[in-house]
């Protein structure tokens, strides 16, 4: 089923060659599955109804998308102009987020003040989006490691360790502390300068991934395994929920909330923004690394 023999050119353009069926190796030879698969493959080529559908489908899609993009560009053209001071979004809401950033939230970074102090419920949901997605990825990819698989993984790891690029290792050795330091800086300075839990957490997660790539999972498991992952994310999210519940309860009932605001600009200030940033950062870092690990070897 090589491309380019008889199909319309439009379709050629929008189909990839990489995943062409002819390139796919069948599973184990002699397998029942394979026979069935090959039969299906043969029949698939002359499913007439589907051929018609496939030919009509791109045309329909192009038309639909052209309509959509024209409509959207036209709509946007009639929206408030770009970069002006008199745009409707520049209203009292935005003004208070900036004015209240230091006065109410105690944060110098108005974005951190807004997402954690003013709109804390959204951000609580956001942290749980990551949690739910790692649950879904676990459902799809997690495999229980039996002894054989573990042994094979170890052996592979050792083999990779010998053959792995020494340039990568040396560069990682130099870069890694810097990456982690930068990540921690971004988390701890989330209320003072741009950044925060999500940004810093992803940086740290990227650092963990780099470590795993350069030194192997066996090495990473010395300080990060399933248990650590579970403890960190459960503790971080529960802490976050508890803090937010306290905020919601005191805020809605007009009670005086105990918020240690400190002096804006110093590191221990801005109430709960720093601990919340820390919790979120840890959770994000763990989750990012866990996703990579799940994809790579089917477990955290």
């Amino acid at each position, binding site marked *: 089923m090589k491309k380019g023999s008889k199909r319309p050119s439009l379709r050629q353009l*929008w*189909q*990839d060659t990489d*995943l062409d069926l002819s390139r*796919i190796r069948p*599973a184990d030879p002699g397998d029942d599955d394979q026979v069935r698969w090959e*039969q*299906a493959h043969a*029949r*698939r080529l002359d*499913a007439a109804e*589907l051929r018609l559908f496939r030919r009509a489908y791109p045309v329909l*899609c*192009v038309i*639909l*998308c052209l309509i959509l*993009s024209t409509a*959207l*560009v036209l*709509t*946007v*053209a*009639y*929206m*408030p*102009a770009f*970069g*002006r001071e008199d745009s409707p*979004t520049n209203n009292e*809401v*935005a*003004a208070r*987020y*900036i004015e209240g*950033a*230091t*006065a109410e939230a105690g944060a*110098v*970074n*108005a*974005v951190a*003040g*807004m*997402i954690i102090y003013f*709109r804390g419920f959204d951000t609580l949901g*956001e942290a749980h*989006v990551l949690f739910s*997605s*790692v649950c*879904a*990825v676990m459902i*799809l*990819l997690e495999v229980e490691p039996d002894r054989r698989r573990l042994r094979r993984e170890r052996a592979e790891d050792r083999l990779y360790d010998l053959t792995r690029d020494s340039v990568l290792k040396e560069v990682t050795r130099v870069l890694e502390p810097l990456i982690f330091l930068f990540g921690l800086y971004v988390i701890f300075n989330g209320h003072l300068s*741009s950044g*925060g839990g*999500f*940004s810093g957490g992803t940086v740290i997660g990227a650092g963990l991934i780099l470590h795993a790539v350069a030194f192997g999972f066996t090495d990473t498991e010395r300080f990060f395994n399933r248990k650590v992952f579970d403890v960190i994310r459960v503790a971080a999210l529960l802490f976050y929920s508890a803090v937010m519940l306290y905020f919601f309860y005191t805020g809605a009932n007009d009670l005086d909330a105990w918020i240690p605001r400190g002096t*804006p600009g110093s590191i221990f200030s801005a109430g709960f923004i720093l601990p919340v940033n820390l919790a979120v950062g840890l959770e994000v870092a763990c989750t990012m690394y866990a*996703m990579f690990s799940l*994809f790579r070897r089917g477990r955290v």
Partner: protein
Amino acid sequence: MNLLTVLGRILDNYEECAAMVLFAIGFFMLILHRNLIKKIIGMNIMDTAMYLFLASIGYIEGRAAPVLEDGAADPALYINPIPTGLVLTGIVVSVSFTAIMLALSVRLYRRYRTLNLDDIYTIIREERK
């Protein structure tokens, strides 16, 4: 609708319009491509286009990022912080979706040895018979 005024408006809003073109490209990829990986990339492009759109709504020419230096909390100095916060949420959401879709494509490939959705539907239909 005068064509010239519309063009002028489009030029006025070039940033948002570019975001909408990107959105259309992403949408195009998401629904037209039969390959899952391409669909996922299309989804990502679509999402980032929306974030670009959101950020350009809040942008005000000549103002600084909303980090209040020296405690000067004058709203006339800084851009709107809301879009930044919302985009931050959105980026996290789209990376979650990407991870799930990629995991799904790994699983589908294990089972059907192809990532072309049409082929997968055909195989399923064949197997059902």
